[in-house]
C-alpha cells in the first residue's frame, strides 16, 4: 500500500499538539468542505484532510500511525509484522487489498472500542452521494444509468476490502438540474444487522448545443432575417419532441421571447415546462449592390429608434 503523510495533509509538524491538530483541521475543513467550498478539487482535498484528522485526533490511532515511522508521501510499504498485534489487532489481520485509509478505518472508531476489533455492534452501511450528468434528451425521454461504484466492505473474518458495486437506476422523464434522487439500500452493506446505506444521485444537465435549461423551461436562440422579423413569418424550430412550426409576429424585435407552451422538459408528475425562442435578428455581413440599395430605401423610411435619447431626463 502507499504511505499517506497525515501530518503533511494537515500542514502540522509530527510533534504537533492535539490542539494544534484540531485547529489545523478546522481551518482546512472550513476551506475545503464540499458543502460550502467552491475551491477546485474541494471534495478530494477535504477527504484527505478528514482522513488525516480521523486518525491523528485519536491518541491510539495516532500512536499506531506514528509507529509506522516517517516516510515519503506515496512510498510503497507494508506495516511491520507485529504492528497490528502491538496496536490491538488480531492475528488474522491481513494487508491484502487494503489501502491506507481502510487500514485506520479498521480501528474501533464509531464501532466502539479501540484496536482492530469490529465487535458485534450494529453498524449501518455507508451512504454514497454521486453526481451524474445527463443530456437534455435523456431528461426529456428518461434514461437508465449504469453506475460502476466501488464500496469498502468487511469479509466474514472482518477484513476490509474494496468490492465493485454496479447499480442500474431508471431515471423517469422530468429530471432537471439539481434534482436529487435517493436509491434506498443501494449504498454500503450494513454490518451485524445494521441497515444498508443509501445511494443519492445529484443530477445535472450537460450543456446543449441548442437549448439552455432552467428548471423545466428551455430557451433557444432563434435567428431571424430582418425581413422575417419586420413582416412576420412561419419558421420551423426544433424542440426535444421534434420540430414545430412557429409563427413570428410582424414587428418582432431582437431579444423578444416567443413562448411555445408545454414544449419544454416534462414534469415528473405530469405537464411540462415551456420552450422560449429568443429572437435574434441577423443582419448579413456582406451586401450586394441591389441589397444595399433596398436597405438604403428602407433606411430613408425608417423611424428613428433613438428618439427617446433627446427627450428630457
Amino acid at each position: 500500500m502507499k504511505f499517506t503523510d497525515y501530518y503533511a495533509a494537515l500542514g502540522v509538524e509530527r510533534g504537533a499538539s492535539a490542539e494544534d491538530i484540531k485547529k489545523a483541521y478546522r481551518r482546512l475543513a472550513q476551506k475545503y468542505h464540499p458543502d460550502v467550498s467552491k475551491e477546485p478539487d474541494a471534495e478530494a482535498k477535504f477527504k484527505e484532510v478528514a482522513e488525516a484528522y480521523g486518525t491523528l485526533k485519536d491518541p491510539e490511532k495516532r500512536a499506531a500511525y506514528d509507529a509506522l515511522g516517517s516516510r515519503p508521501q506515496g512510498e510503497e510499504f507494508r506495516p511491520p509484522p507485529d504492528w497490528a498485534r502491538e496496536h490491538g489487532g488480531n492475528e488474522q489481520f491481513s494487508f491484502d487489498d487494503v489501502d491506507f485509509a481502510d487500514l485506520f478505518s479498521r480501528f474501533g472508531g464509531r464501532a466502539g472500542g479501540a484496536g482492530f476489533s469490529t465487535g458485534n455492534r450494529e453498524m449501518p452501511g455507508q451512504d454514497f452521494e454521486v453526481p451524474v450528468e445527463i443530456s437534455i434528451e435523456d431528461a426529456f425521454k428518461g434514461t437508465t444509468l449504469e453506475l460502476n461504484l466501488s464500496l469498502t466492505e468487511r469479509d466474514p473474518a472482518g477484513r476490509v476490502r474494496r468490492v465493485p458495486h454496479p447499480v442500474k437506476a431508471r431515471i423517469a422523464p422530468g429530471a432537471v438540474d439539481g434534482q436529487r434522487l435517493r436509491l434506498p439500500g443501494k449504498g454500503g452493506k450494513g454490518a451485524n444487522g445494521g441497515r444498508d446505506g443509501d445511494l443519492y444521485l445529484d443530477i445535472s444537465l450537460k450543456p446543449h448545443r441548442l437549448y439552455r435549461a432552467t428548471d423545466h423551461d428551455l430557451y433557444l436562440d432563434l435567428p431571424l432575417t430582418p425581413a422575417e422579423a419586420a413582416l412576420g413569418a412561419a419558421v420551423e424550430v426544433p424542440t426535444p419532441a421534434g420540430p414545430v412550426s412557429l409563427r413570428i409576429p410582424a414587428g418582432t424585435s431582437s431579444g423578444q421571447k416567443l413562448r411555445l407552451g408545454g414544449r419544454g422538459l416534462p414534469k415528473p408528475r405530469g405537464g411540462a415546462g415551456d420552450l422560449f425562442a429568443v429572437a435574434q435578428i441577423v443582419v448579413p455581413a456582406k451586401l450586394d449592390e441591389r441589397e444595399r440599395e433596398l436597405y438604403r430605401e428602407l433606411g430613408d423610411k425608417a423611424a428613428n429608434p433613438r428618439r427617446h435619447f433627446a427627450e428630457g431626463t
Partner: protein
Amino acid sequence: MTFESEVMWLDEHRAVTLQELIEISGLPELELLELVHAGAIPALETAQGYTFSARVVTVARTACRLRDDLELDVHGLGVALRLLERVSDLEAEIVRLRAQLPRA
C-alpha cells in the same frame, strides 16, 4: 450482479415523516427539532406531528455533515443552512437569467 433499483425523487411531491428524516439524515432528533423550530428546516405541523417535503432530505443531510465535519453547534448550523439556502437561490437565479441571454 447489476440490479435495477427503486428510485425516490426528493422533491416537494413526496413527504417524509420526522422519524424517516432522522433515520435518513443521521441528525439526532433534538437537534433536528431545534433546526425546525428555528425555521432552518421547513416543516408542516399536523395533528400527527411534523411532516417534511422530501426536498428537505438533502438539507438535513447537509446539516448532519456540517455538524460532524465542522463540529458546528445547532445555532451555527442554523445560520450555515440559511446562508447555503440563500447561495442556492442566488445560483438558481443566475442560471435562470443566463438561460435567457443569447449565446455570444
